[in-house]
């Protein structure tokens, strides 16, 4: 009890110091920001629906990039995460696989997009590759942890019948992890749709490019339409994945 009190006190103090350093106690600045936010919001209404055709097309590209990138990343992350499972492979194989995933994860998705713009030029191809690589880094880690949790007794029993390592993956590791595998994939897809809407800022395709133009020309009414569209897509995605989860994942356990 007494120790909890000290820990909570210390954490609060630290948080206070950090907030101060970040300018959170600068009342004047915060007040001005609040005022600007009001003005900004005011200039957004009414949203300019005239840009719907342009925005819709850009949004479609964003969604395509997210889907293709997520699927590509998923396909690469599967073998990488299997190599990263200590229950299946002896060191140093898992350590190496995890190191690759960690290295990939270090670089944020926006930076990956910039790298691919340099490598393959402007446009959605760069964005798709950026999303794919980022997805590999994230899913490979999550999946390796998931596979690591496979019941060792089941692995032992199936290994005991004379099954090969690939058979273990096919008949134990993947089926036992299937639900969590799909759940994480859906989560990743939702995340990528949100994340990919800013990739256009660096010329990697999608709705971000249009967004940036409207931001720079202070065209807030058009920007508002874009944001509403993204919101709609995110909500639809949430709905679809929620339905999938209920329909398939919960039903099987």
């Amino acid at each position: 009890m007494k120790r909890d009190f000290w820990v909570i006190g210390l954490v609060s103090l630290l948080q206070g110091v950090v907030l101060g350093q970040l300018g959170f106690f600068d009342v004047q600045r915060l007040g001005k920001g609040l005022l600007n936010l009001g003005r900004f919001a005011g200039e957004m209404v009414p949203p300019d629906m005239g840009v719907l055709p342009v925005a819709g097309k850009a949004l479609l590209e964003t969604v395509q990039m997210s889907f293709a990138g997520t699927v590509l990343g998923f396909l690469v992350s599967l073998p990488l995460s299997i190599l990263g499972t200590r229950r299946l492979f002896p060191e140093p194989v898992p350590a190496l696989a995890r190191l690759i995933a960690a290295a990939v994860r270090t670089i944020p998705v926006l930076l990956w997009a910039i790298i691919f713009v340099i490598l393959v030029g402007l446009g959605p191809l760069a964005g798709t590759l950026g999303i794919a690589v980022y997805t590999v880094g994230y899913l490979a880690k999550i999946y390796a942890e998931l596979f690591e949790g496979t019941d060792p007794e089941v692995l032992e029993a199936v290994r005991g019948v004379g099954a090969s390592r690939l058979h273990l993956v096919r008949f134990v590791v993947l089926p036992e992890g299937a639900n969590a595998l799909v759940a994480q994939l859906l989560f990743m897809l939702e995340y990528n749709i949100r994340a990919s809407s800013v990739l256009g800022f660096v010329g990697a395709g999608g709705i971000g490019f249009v967004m940036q133009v409207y931001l720079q020309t202070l065209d807030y009414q058009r920007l508002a339409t874009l944001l509403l569209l993204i919101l709609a897509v995110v909500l639809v995605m949430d709905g679809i994945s929620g339905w999938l989860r209920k329909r398939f994942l919960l039903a099987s356990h």
Partner: protein
Amino acid sequence: MRNGKVALRTEGVWFAYREPDWILKDVSLACSLRNVMMIMGPSGSGKTTLLKVMAGILRPQRGKVEVLGIEIQRGVSRGLRPAIGYIPQQLGLVRSLTALENVLIGALSRISPGRGLLGLFPGHEVEQARAAMDLMGIGHKAREKVFRLSGGERQRVAIARTLLQHPRLVLADEFVSDLDLPRAAEILTLMRQVAEQEDITFVMNMHEVQLVQEFGDQVLMVSNGQVLHECSAQEVNLDRFTEVVQ
């Protein structure tokens, strides 16, 4: 002993998960072909460890383990692997697969890697799997996912899977101890039947004295990682057991 030939033999086996905490201390035993050997002993005495050493899953630091005349203390060759069936205490079934798929896993050592990965089992293997399930009385549950099956049905799936690997020796870890006596007796009757038909030697860890007497040939009593007593199943009684264990 009904047959002089030895299916399983250990000589001076010592095993520790972390030396020098010896879990098995100088274990020597022999089990004849087609016998049913029951291993009794208090919890924590090393029965599971002993079974895993005899299945070639754990490697003893010292001593010799011989299965069907082949030494396995340094590992089991791919060829011998299917001949040794091992049924762990929790059965080791893949819960998210169907009963039939679990049974077919027993045939994996005979299937080419490509077909195996695609789950394309040859027709005669599927027939064999269904026959094994019929024998175990669970033919009607073939398409059911394992997590939907009852405890007794799961035991039967586990045996059917082991039968499909065409074992000569089956090591089963307390695997009827979760069932009530009549049900356990039913399954053990089946196992004895199979043992005789298919020439299989059974070794199992078992608590229940009644079942040991009824279904065992040979009995081994272990305590604290050592073999304390060996006798025939008829000689076993509860007094003898508690006396030995204390």
